[in-house]
């Protein structure tokens, strides 16, 4: 039912050419006069920070967003892409940033759903599974069509997505940040598959905000910053510094780890035989964070990190075991009691349990402190103290705009996160649990936040850094644990490298039983 790929291009015309593409969302110019040219057989990077407009540009290409201006040519022919159907018919395949497979369906059912009905509208299992297997093999990818997507690893799911995107004969394949959910070995497999597809004459648009990755796999790189193209360069003619400068707009200072705090023997945060409350039974966990130490928990999203964080912060009851802070048993303490005992928390879902979006910056910053005598007179709040507190923290953490009266929800995600960290650190907690503290932030904000964490560490705080960003965990942590299907394992001290941690994220070093279990907790 889908049309096949367009005939081969007139000589010399690029597979894809976008010119003068502009798109505004209200005040925001998400794309301003953007041009992008991709040749057949090329892997072309679209590099940019979060919010640079990469996804918007690709949504324009896929007919999901209607641009205010711009032309799109495929194989030198102008096309009007007014919806996903038209885009597919024009030979464009898309792997979205958030994987979009139906989890209770089998691989074949997912592919058939996307392809459309066979003649007669029947779904004949054997026929369709054979079709799916053959189709994937034709692209040089291996699939098991009869398996349920829910049982597949994220790397395997992505392979299904790629096959799905190619099903309708796509000659231009777009992958929106495909590596964020993958372990390093899976990333390597993905790169092999992409090179193979490019070698067979497809044009691949590879979207990323990771410099090393882009230099590794792409031929040319187009950099986007705040909706404006900052040039297209050949990977061979550039390096990370140059790309970072284009992407961020200025050079970065880098992380300053500073002198290592002499790790005290004091185990400030201690978790003993902890059983988290989850659907499937989990083996008990043991770990500790000492004074002046950052312990990282690495792992692909959804491997039990959320449960650990919620259990530590008191949002989720522990089934068994003990959580101690500075020697004090907090296993059954409420979130408030934990905060008073000196536990700071930067939750995963900051807009839900971190800040109150409708309240002002000043009020949000006082959410913990407002019970203190200094903040009130009797039952009444002292507005002047609220304001002074806010002004001080806003200045110290460089929040933009520096206005304590604004509703926090009107600030960008990065600034909300800065405020959250400001609030938690200003309480001078003994231990801090930080879940993905820099997710969604731009490079500069990320660096600033990471430096704050390092400063806190240097001042003796015990920090548990739970992050799906392997680079972040490697850069900040003194010790690393890996979360895999609800279990934790510590990375040997002499092997704190990308390779080892990456393999462990894929299950190496965990008991075989853990590897066989369904991935969803």
């Amino acid at each position, binding site marked *: 039912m889908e049309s096949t790929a367009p005939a081969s291009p007139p000589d010399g015309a690029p597979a894809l050419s976008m010119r003068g593409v502009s798109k505004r969302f209200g005040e925001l110019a998400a794309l301003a006069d953007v041009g992008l040219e991709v040749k057949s057989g090329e892997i072309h990077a679209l590099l940019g920070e979060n919010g640079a407009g990469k996804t918007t540009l690709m949504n324009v290409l896929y007919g999901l967003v209607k641009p205010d201006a711009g032309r799109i040519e495929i194989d030198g022919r102008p096309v009007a892409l007014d*919806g*996903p*159907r038209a885009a*597919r018919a024009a030979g464009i395949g898309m792997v*979205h940033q958030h994987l*979009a*497979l*139906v*989890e*209770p*369906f089998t691989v074949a*059912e*997912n592919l*058939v*759903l*996307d392809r*459309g*009905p*066979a003649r007669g*509208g*029947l*779904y*004949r*299992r054997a026929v369709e599974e054979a079709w799916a297997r053959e189709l994937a093999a034709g692209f040089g990818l291996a699939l098991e069509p009869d398996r349920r997507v829910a049982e597949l690893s994220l790397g395997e799911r992505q392979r299904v997505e790629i096959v799905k995107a190619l099903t309708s004969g796509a000659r231009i394949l777009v992958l929106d940040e495909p590596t964020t959910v993958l372990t390093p070995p899976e990333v390597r497999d993905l790169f092999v598959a992409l090179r193979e597809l490019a070698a067979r004459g497809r044009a691949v648009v590879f979207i990323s905000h990771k410099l090393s990755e882009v230099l590794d796999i792409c031929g040319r790189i187009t950099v986007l910053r705040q909706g404006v193209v900052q040039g297209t360069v050949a990977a061979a003619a550039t390096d990370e510094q140059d790309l970072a400068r284009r992407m961020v707009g200025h050079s970065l200072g880098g992380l300053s780890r500073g002198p290592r705090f002499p790790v005290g023997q004091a185990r400030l945060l201690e978790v003993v035989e902890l059983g988290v409350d989850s*659907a499937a039974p989990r083996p008990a966990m043991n770990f500790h964070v000492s004074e002046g130490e950052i312990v990282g928990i690495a792992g692909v999203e959804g491997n039990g990190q959320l449960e650990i964080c919620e259990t530590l912060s008191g949002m989720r009851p522990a089934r068994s075991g003990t959580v101690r802070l500075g020697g004090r048993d907090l296993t059954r303490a409420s979130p408030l009691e934990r905060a008073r005992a000196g536990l700071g928390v930067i939750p995963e879902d900051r807009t839900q349990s971190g800040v109150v979006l409708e309240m002002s910056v000043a009020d949000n910053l006082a959410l913990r402190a407002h019970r203190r005598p200094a903040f009130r007179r009797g039952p009444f709040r002292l507005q002047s103290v609220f304001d002074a507190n806010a002004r001080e923290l806003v200045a110290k953490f460089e929040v933009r705009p520096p206005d304590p009266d604004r509703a926090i929800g009107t600030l960008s995600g990065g600034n909300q996160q800065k405020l959250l960290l400001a609030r938690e650190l200003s309480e001078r907690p003994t231990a801090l649990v930080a879940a993905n503290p820099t997710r969604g932030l731009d490079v500069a904000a990320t660096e600033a936040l990471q430096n704050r964490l390092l400063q806190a560490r240097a001042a003796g705080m015990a920090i548990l850094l739970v992050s799906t960003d392997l680079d972040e965990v490697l850069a900040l942590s003194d010790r690393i644990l890996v979360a895999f299907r609800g279990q934790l394992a510590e990375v040997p001290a002499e092997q704190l490298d990308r390779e080892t941690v990456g393999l462990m994220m894929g299950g190496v070093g965990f008991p075989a039983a853990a590897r066989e279990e369904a991935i969803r907790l």
Partner: protein
Amino acid sequence: MIVFELAAASIRMSAPLLYASLGELLGEKAGVVNISLEGAMLVSAFAGTVATLACGNLWLGLAASVAAGMLFLAAFAALTVALACDQILVGTAMNLVAFGLTGLLYRERFGASGAALTLPIFPPVRVPLLADLPFVGPLLFEHNLLVYGAFLLVPAVHLALHATWPGLALRAAGEKPETLEAAGYSVRRVRAAALLAQGALAGVAGAYLALAHAGTFVEGLTAGRGFIALAIVVSGRWTAIGVLGVSGTSVAAQFHLQASDLGVPYQFVRMVPYILTLVVLAQVSRARSAAPAALGR
């Protein structure tokens, strides 16, 4: 022989529940909870009654019920699917409308006295040869056509959901609507189609109660069976086979209760549908794993 007759009666009384719960199953698999199934059945039963009396033909009565059910669900779909109103609120409101409307029209037409209406009912049809078998013959093969239809509908719904492309699209609408939309299909259209099919089935269920079971129409004829059908879908873990199993056992249990006469006060029996609705809502949130992921959204 009493056991035997009870079993045959159980089979007959499963039929309307099967129509209703298979209809609800289609809707829920597509991601829509319709708690006004009860109202849809009631309105259909009334429409079937009026048409049968007017035309003197049971099949035209059945057709009127089906049309009324589809119309009712079209209104429900317009509000919940097209206008994206809250499904539970719309369902509650439409139930109230259905109870009020049938009550009003009934009195308008047949008088407040509630003088007993007598309707023709679908006669039993003996399946040639099979009905002559000892025991199973009269048990399974001496029912009206709608009973056979109900039991044939179980595999039909199962196959429609799992062995056809529209079934795939319907389940996708209930599990991950964004994906269906990204594939270039309209989630709204799929859900509306599922609800219209549900309307037709609710229509048959309503017709059954008036034209095959009671042979009359009274206010509140459905007596909570729409709510029970909702519970059956949940307890049947959202599968056609599960629905068959649960409706069979629940009807059997009901007869057993009646036969053993535990002396449960009538008022408590009247509460059962409401309690069941609560149980359903509580279970839907608990039994998330088997439920369609996008149910109610």
